[in-house]
């Protein structure tokens, strides 16, 4: 299977998942996002899962861990496009993605990332004063 492409747009890395991921492909995406954060000035990560039909406990946990890892590298993560049926299933499964910010679609996700990054800048400045 092809790797999930990661593209950089300004300060944001966009990973658009094209199909149901094998465990190894999901782990690979996590590592590549970490590498990309280390080697670019990106401060936001947007993961689009709108074509993903099944998010089980493995992938749900991995999304959580990816967001936490990105946070440690100074970046915010937003997962966009979770299908309604997937959202219901995740809650029943007991996985509520508490560590992950979500948005309905890419537009709203990018807007949320911009706000989060701007808020961080604001905090940074107030600390300097």
């Amino acid at each position, binding site marked *: 299977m092809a790797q999930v492409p990661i593209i950089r747009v300004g300060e944001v890395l966009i990973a658009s998942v094209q199909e*149901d991921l*094998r*465990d*190894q492909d999901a782990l690979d995406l996590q590592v590549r996002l970490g590498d990309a954060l280390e080697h670019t000035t990106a401060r936001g990560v947007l993961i689009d899962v709108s074509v993903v*039909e*099944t*998010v*089980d*406990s*493995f992938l749900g*946990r991995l999304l959580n861990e990816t967001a936490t890892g990105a946070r440690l590298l100074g970046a915010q993560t937003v997962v966009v496009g979770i*299908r*309604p*049926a*997937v959202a*219901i*299933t995740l809650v*029943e*499964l*007991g*996985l509520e993605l508490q560590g992950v910010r979500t948005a309905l679609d890419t537009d709203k996700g990018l807007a949320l990332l911009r706000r989060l990054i701007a808020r961080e800048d604001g905090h940074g400045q107030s600390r300097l004063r």
Partner: protein
Amino acid sequence: MVNLGSAEQHLPIRDESDIISARHRAREVAKTLGFGAVDQSRIATAVSELTRNVVRYATDGRGEVVIRPRAQSERGTGLEIVVSDEGPGIADVEQALRDGFTSGPGMGMGLPGTKRLMDEMEIDSAPGQGTIVTIRKWRR
């Protein structure tokens, strides 16, 4: 062409990619039987959890999935899925069904979470005897 609506299907579990094939097939059959989008997601996710257990915990990581459409006069149309392996088995099934219990890496969400997604779940297992998990969902 297999008649998805009535025929029983047997799928081998050998490696990670079979997790995806099994859950795709279960979803297709659920769709054919008239299950809605949320039930299709519940069924595919339950199959994903159970087949991953086989790949991760069974001795050789191998097992089998049987997907079996059911028709019952009282409950109507349903789908029964049996996931079996010849792995180490589960010593305490009741404990394995409790939230938070795990015998390996992960958060122990697999079995109790799977049970919540389905209408019925039965586990037949003993140490050294392998594990057979049967799950059922009935169409509302």
